[in-house]
């Protein structure tokens, strides 16, 4: 089938739980994993006479995200009631920003196959999360846990400007990285801190009209979002190609076989009867508030990535890898205060140090090796006293947890490379004597064998022979003979 005849059009709605201590409009705790109905109070449970009051921190976090996404921050913020009949919110309505989202427009830059693309945002607004309904615990009844009810959320809505599953994947990866980077959410999809609904349609390539859309819910990992979109695009194209009609539906993703299935047909748009919430006082955000927040924020990944390339001369790949996580990026910067061998710092962080944290299953933040100790290791490599692999495999494990002096430890462990020409000549001669056949082949022109000889010298010197000097000595002796 010719899939290139169609262009997929995707818009994503991402809900991010903000990691405030308390809820959006009340002072009960905002935590994951507590016993049912133990983090509630009279406001969350909608007891008569209670009034919601805005959490200052939630506003700050939403503004942070707006700044990170290049949005315009709305000065006058009001809240509306979104009325719906479902017991997951005891009030009978959700408090949300309807006409005045806190952040308007903006974009997130993603990179797909090495090309950068801006994903444009429609809005980011603040709203409260609903409680959890459990349908299968008691026969004939739905059980409700209101611990999550009232948790602060931001909903990030893109324009319908995403055109492939891969772009959606990269966009979500970037959102998760950003919310962790500016520390407004843990971004954990399995625990529901980050949730995504995808609106998907297809249209003939070149057309500017939007086709009938399907909304896919219950996507609990970034990988599943990608799989669900891939499946939907194929399903829709097959429908159209076989002369059938795409109907507007809400569908759910089935992770057991990577397909989607319809959960409801949309007969008419929901009528939420929004109106301004008379209980909540509007708030006004001025420019100095925005400027203060901006000043308090760390450099953002996209900006750092380009600094790493222009200022430190790193490759685009290394810069991208370092900016996958804030702690890794800032560890790199911290180390540049002690060493100017930027490429070596990047190699060490992205190689052995990443491997170390992955093996222990810890965050880079938890690494005990100090940047100055790493710089000390790199200085030994720069001075030719130790090679990269010995540094990574032998010296690093010895000092990663205690930050002992790298030079003294390398000496103690007998790791310092021998750059003494006599010693190296002796090893070289030994190798040449032991391999007369290979030496002949080399002389007949199989120059690639030099690597084998260097390896042998490395072996008998127990890794201590300076590889540069070894190579030059080998070449000298072999070419003389």
């Amino acid at each position, binding site marked *: 089938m010719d899939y290139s005849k169609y262009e997929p059009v995707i818009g994503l709605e991402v809900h991010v739980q903000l990691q*405030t*201590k*308390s809820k959006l409009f*009340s*002072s*009960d*705790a905002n935590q994951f994993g507590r*016993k*049912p*109905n*133990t*983090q*509630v*109070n*009279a406001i969350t*449970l909608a007891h008569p006479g209670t009034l919601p*009051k*805005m*959490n*200052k*921190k*939630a*506003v700050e976090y939403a503004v942070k995200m707006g700044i990170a996404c290049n949005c315009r921050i709305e000065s006058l913020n*009001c809240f509306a009631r979104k*009325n719906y*009949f*479902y*017991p997951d919110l005891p009030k009978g309505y959700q408090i949300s920003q309807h006409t*005045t989202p806190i952040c308007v427009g903006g974009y997130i830059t993603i990179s797909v196959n090495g090309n950068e693309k801006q994903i444009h945002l429609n809005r980011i607004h603040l709203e409260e999360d609903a409680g959890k*309904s*459990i*349908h*299968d*615990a*008691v026969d*004939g*009844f*739905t*059980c*409700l*846990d*209101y611990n999550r009810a009232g948790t602060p959320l931001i909903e990030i809505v893109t324009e319908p400007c995403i055109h492939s599953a891969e772009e959606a994947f990269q966009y979500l990866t970037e959102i998760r990285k950003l919310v962790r980077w500016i520390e407004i959410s843990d971004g954990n999809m399995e625990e529901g801190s980050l949730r995504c609904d995808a609106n998907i349609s297809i249209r003939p390539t070149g057309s500017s009209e939007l086709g009938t859309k399907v909304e896919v819910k219950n996507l609990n990992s970034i990988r599943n979002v990608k799989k669900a979109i891939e499946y939907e695009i194929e399903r829709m194209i097959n429908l159209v190609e076989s002369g059938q009609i795409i109907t507007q539906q809400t569908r759910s993703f089935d992770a057991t076989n990577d397909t989607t299935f319809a959960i409801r047909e949309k007969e008419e748009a929901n*009528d939420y*009867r929004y109106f*301004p919430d*008379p209980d*909540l*006082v*509007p*708030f*006004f955000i001025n420019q100095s508030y925005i400027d203060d927040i901006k000043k308090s924020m760390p450099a953002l990944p996209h900006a750092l990535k380009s600094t790493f390339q222009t200022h430190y001369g790193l490759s685009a790949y290394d810069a991208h890898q370092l900016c996958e996580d804030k702690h890794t990026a800032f560890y790199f910067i911290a180390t540049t205060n002690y060493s100017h061998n930027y490429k070596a710092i990047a190699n060490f962080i992205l190689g052995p140090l990443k491997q170390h944290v992955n093996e222990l299953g810890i965050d880079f933040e938890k690494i005990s090796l100090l940047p100055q100790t790493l710089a000390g290791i790199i200085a030994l490599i720069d001075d030719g006293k130790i090679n990269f692999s010995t540094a990574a495999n032998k010296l690093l494990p010895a000092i990663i947890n205690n930050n002992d002096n790298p030079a003294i430890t390398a000496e103690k462990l007998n790791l310092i490379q021998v750059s003494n020409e006599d010693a190296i000549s002796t090893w070289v001669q030994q190798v040449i004597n032991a391999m007369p056949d290979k030496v002949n082949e080399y002389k007949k022109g199989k120059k690639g064998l030099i690597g084998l000889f260097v390896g042998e010298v490395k072996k008998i010197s127990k890794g201590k022979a300076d590889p540069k000097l070894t190579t030059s000595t080998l070449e000298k002796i072999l070419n003389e003979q």
Partner: protein
Amino acid sequence: MEVNKNLVEKLAHLSRLTIAENEMPEVINDLENMIGFVEQLQAIDTSDVQPLMYVGQAMNVFREDEVNDEITQQQALKNAPLHTDEFFEVPTVIKK
């Protein structure tokens, strides 16, 4: 605005109310009166007036992000007509 049976049924559904057939004429009449009253207000030209989102004068009333005022699970469930030891209960809201 014309209030007909369809509109009343739609509104009743949104509010989960059941309106009997014999109540219909009265409800339609009442609603028409109410809407007619509001329609009088729409005769006023408000094109230069910002929509009023909030009636009070207060602005920027914030709460510090602190945890207090929590109640216990037992207190939370006490007034619910239906509950288990841990959960509030309502009649099943989705069909299996």
